[in-house]
C-alpha cells in the first residue's frame, strides 16, 4: 500500500513551549502533562472548507474595509509573502486571516483599555486566500506598539497577528509577524518564547519592490512555513 501524505509533527526545536515563565499567563494556562501521541492514521482530518466566494472584495485591504469618512491614520504598508510547507511547496488557495492594533497601538476590541485613540476608519481585521503560488497580499497600516501588564512598563513590539489552516486540521498555525530591527523585540517574552532556531521566521523584512507603485506604501515580506508534508509508512 502506498504511503499516505500526512502532516509532519510539530518541530519542538522551533516551536515555543506551553509554559514559558517570562510570559506570565502561560504558567496557569499551559498544559503541564505530556501530550498523548496519536497514530497518524487517526489524525488525518482536513482543514475546514471555504472558497473564493467567502472572501469580500475589500477583505484584504484594511485601509478601506472599515473606512467611514476617510482614510485611517498611519503609515501605509503592503504585507505580502508565500505560505509554504517544509519542503517549500506552496499552500495554494489557503485562508490567511490577520488582525492588528491601529497606528496608535490601540485595538478595536472592547477589552482593550489602553489610553490611545481609536481610529474611526480602521478596524484592523482582514483576510484573503493565497494564489496558486501560495502568495497572499494585504494593504494595511503599520501597527503601533502598546503596553501590557506582563511586567513593569512592558511594551509589545509592533506586530500583526496571523491565523492559517493549511490543508490539514493539524497544520493550523496562529502566529505573529514582527518587523526586523524593532528594538522592542529583545525585550518581548512572547517573541523570545520561540526557540532561536525558529525565531527568524517571525520577522518580516523591508522590500520596497513588492509594492509596485513608487511613493505609495512601504513593503514588507513575510513567508510562512506550515507543518508538512510527512510520508507515513503503511501500517502493518
Amino acid at each position, binding site marked *: 500500500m502506498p504511503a499516505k501524505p500526512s502532516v509532519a509533527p510539530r518541530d519542538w526545536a522551533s516551536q515555543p513551549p506551553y509554559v514559558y515563565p517570562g*510570559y506570565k499567563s502561560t504558567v496557569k494556562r499551559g498544559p503541564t502533562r505530556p501530550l498523548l501521541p496519536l497514530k497518524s492514521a487517526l489524525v488525518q482530518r482536513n482543514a475546514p472548507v471555504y472558497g473564493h466566494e467567502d472572501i469580500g472584495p475589500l477583505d484584504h485591504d484594511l485601509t478601506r474595509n472599515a473606512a467611514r469618512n476617510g482614510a485611517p491614520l498611519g503609515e501605509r504598508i503592503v504585507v505580502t509573502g508565500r505560505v509554504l510547507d517544509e519542503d517549500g511547496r506552496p499552500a495554494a488557495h489557503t485562508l490567511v486571516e490577520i488582525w492588528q492594533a491601529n497606528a496608535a497601538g490601540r485595538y478595536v476590541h472592547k477589552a482593550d483599555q489602553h489610553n490611545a485613540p481609536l481610529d474611526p476608519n480602521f478596524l484592523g*481585521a482582514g483576510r484573503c486566500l493565497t494564489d496558486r503560488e501560495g502568495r497572499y497580499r494585504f494593504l494595511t497600516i503599520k501597527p503601533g506598539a502598546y503596553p501590557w501588564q506582563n511586567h513593569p512598563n512592558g511594551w509589545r513590539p509592533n506586530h500583526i497577528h496571523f491565523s492559517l489552516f493549511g490543508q490539514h486540521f493539524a497544520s493550523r498555525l496562529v502566529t505573529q509577524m514582527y518587523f526586523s530591527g524593532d528594538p522592542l523585540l529583545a525585550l518581548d517574552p512572547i517573541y523570545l518564547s520561540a526557540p532561536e532556531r525558529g525565531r527568524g521566521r517571525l520577522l518580516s523584512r523591508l522590500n520596497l519592490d513588492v509594492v509596485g507603485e513608487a511613493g505609495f506604501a512601504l513593503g514588507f515580506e513575510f513567508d510562512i512555513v506550515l507543518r508538512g508534508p510527512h510520508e507515513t509508512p503503511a501500517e502493518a
Partner: protein
Amino acid sequence: MKLTQTPSQTVGPYFSYALTSEQYGYDFRSLFGPVLAEPQVAGEHIRLTGRVIYGDGVPVPDAMLEICQANADGRFVASRAEGLASGFRGFGRCGTGTHPARHYWFDTVKPGAAAPGEAPCIDVIVTMRGMLLHAFTRVYFDDEREANARDPVLAALPAERRATLIATREAQPGGVAYRFDIRMQGSKETVFLDL
C-alpha cells in the same frame, strides 16, 4: 533541506473582532461560527457546551475553540459546495467571551464514527491569551460506552485520564446537550493530543 516551521505565537486577548466577529457583535462578516448544522441536517441535533478552566479553577473569558467533525454518517465535508448544499459545515469556531458564565457552545449533530473501530468524536483546537501555541483535544460521548471501550485513542489512556475526554449527556429545555469542560491544568487536566 527542510524549511524551518514558523513558530506559533499566542492568539492574544484581542482576536474576537477578526476571528469571531459576528458572535462578539463587530461589523465584520464571520467565515466560521458556533453553528455547524442547519436544522435540515440529518442526525441527532445536539449542543456541545462547556467551559475552559485554567490553573485556579476559574473559567477563561478569552479562549477560542475550533471544532471539526464528521456528520451523523461518519463522513467529513469534502467541499464548500457540499457544505452549502447539505447545511452541514463540519467546522465551527466559538469564543468564551460572550456568555455570562464563560461557556462556549456549538450547535451541531452528533457525529457518526469516522472509521470502523473508532468511537464517534469531535476534534477540538483550544487557544487563548496565555497559550503560545494551541492545544488539540477530542470530545467523546458518555452514551457510547461500547464504542468508547474499543476506541484506540481512549484505550491508550489510564481510566482516570480517559474521563477527561468524555462529554456528559444532559437533557435541556431546548434539546440535547453534551457538557464538556476543558481543564488546562490540575489533577483533572484534560488530555491533550500530540497531533
